[in-house]
Structures are given as C-alpha cells and as structure tokens.
C-alpha cells in the first residue's frame, strides 16, 4: 500500500458489501485505505464487471455459510469480477487487470510496475 502512495496514487477498494461489513474488514485488517460501498454492484455494472452467481452455486455458498444477501444487503447474488484499474488524472484507464476467476487476485507487483511505467511517461 505504501508503495502506491509513494507513486502519488490513491488506492481505493470497492465492494458490494454494506458499509457495516466493510467497516469490519477495515478494522480487522487495520486498513489505511478507504473501502467504498457499491450497493447492488451498480458501479461495478457501469465498469462492465457485474455478474450473477448461478443458482446451484448460490446453494453451495449458503452451505458453506456464505450468506451474500446478508453481507450485501440485497438478494441479487451478484458480485464484481475482481479487477484492479489504474486511472490517470484525466480520468482515463491506463491499466486494467480483470479476471473471470475470482480466486485469482491481481498481484500488487504487477500494479506497482504499471504505476511506475505510467508515471515515467
């Protein structure tokens, strides 16, 4: 996180969870970055990232005790594709790491390298 700030960038996390659940993450992990609440994945949809879990998968989640409607405050069972984007000061997306597999997280090293490359232009 500090590495991003040293490049003059602000990091924000955006999740569909209710603010109270985001607050729990922020406290548990002692985050210094903002977690923003995106109800119903409305902003994720504008970024083309919103998808819905199929019904059989919804049942699996409930069996594992993952109650998405309770976390997110809506019944849509939608989520955002995991995505890390770098947006420059003109509002243009300069880097996008997006994955259809939610178990794959962007490596911070890739993002940092991209940030440095953009900064040197």
């Amino acid at each position, binding site marked *: 996180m500090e590495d991003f700030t040293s490049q003059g960038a602000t990091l924000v996390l955006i999740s569909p*969870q209710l*603010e109270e659940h985001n607050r729990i993450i922020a406290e548990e992990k002692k985050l210094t970055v903002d977690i*923003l609440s995106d109800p119903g994945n409305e902003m994720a949809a504008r970024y083309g990232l919103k998808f819905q879990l199929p019904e059989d998968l919804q049942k699996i989640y409930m069996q594992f005790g993952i109650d998405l409607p309770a976390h997110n405050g809506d019944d849509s069972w939608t989520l955002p594709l995991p*995505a*890390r984007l770098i*947006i420059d000061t003109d509002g243009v*997306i300069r880097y996008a790491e997006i994955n259809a597999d*939610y178990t794959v997280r962007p490596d911070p090293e890739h993002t940092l390298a991209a940030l440095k490359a953009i*900064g040197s232009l």
Partner: protein
Amino acid sequence: MKLEERLEAYKKSFQKQAPKEAQEIMHRATEDLRNSGILARTVKVGDMAPDFSLNNTRGQVVALSDLLDGGPVVASFYRGRW
C-alpha cells in the same frame, strides 16, 4: 512466496478438501462466466473511467473526480470479506 504461488497452493489444498460436487459446480460457474464473453464487455485501457460517488466506512462520500485532483487512482473491485 509470491502472492500467485500462495493462491495456487491454497487452491490446491482447498481442492483436496471440498466435496467434489461443490468443486464441480464452482468450476463450471467460472467456466460459464468466462465463456459468457463478459471479459469483452468490461472497461478497457483507454476508456474514460465512469465517475463514482460512494460511501466509505466513515460516513463520507468519496468521488473519483475528487480523488483524481490529487493524483492517479488505483481502484480495486473486490467481493468482500468472506
């Protein structure tokens, strides 16, 4: 261990434990998602990032346009704490 290696190792240990049917359902869901063409419809490098005004955990509204006044923004979309 790099993050990718750790995630791979975690995935492998999870695959040994979770019931086979559950794993098949998860795997199929990810494959269907990939085949749905959703990745072709996401924002791309070169696009304007849609502006957002969203609440942080301290009751404040955070707008992308305001953040960009101070420098570039790294925005990470993520599903949450479970």
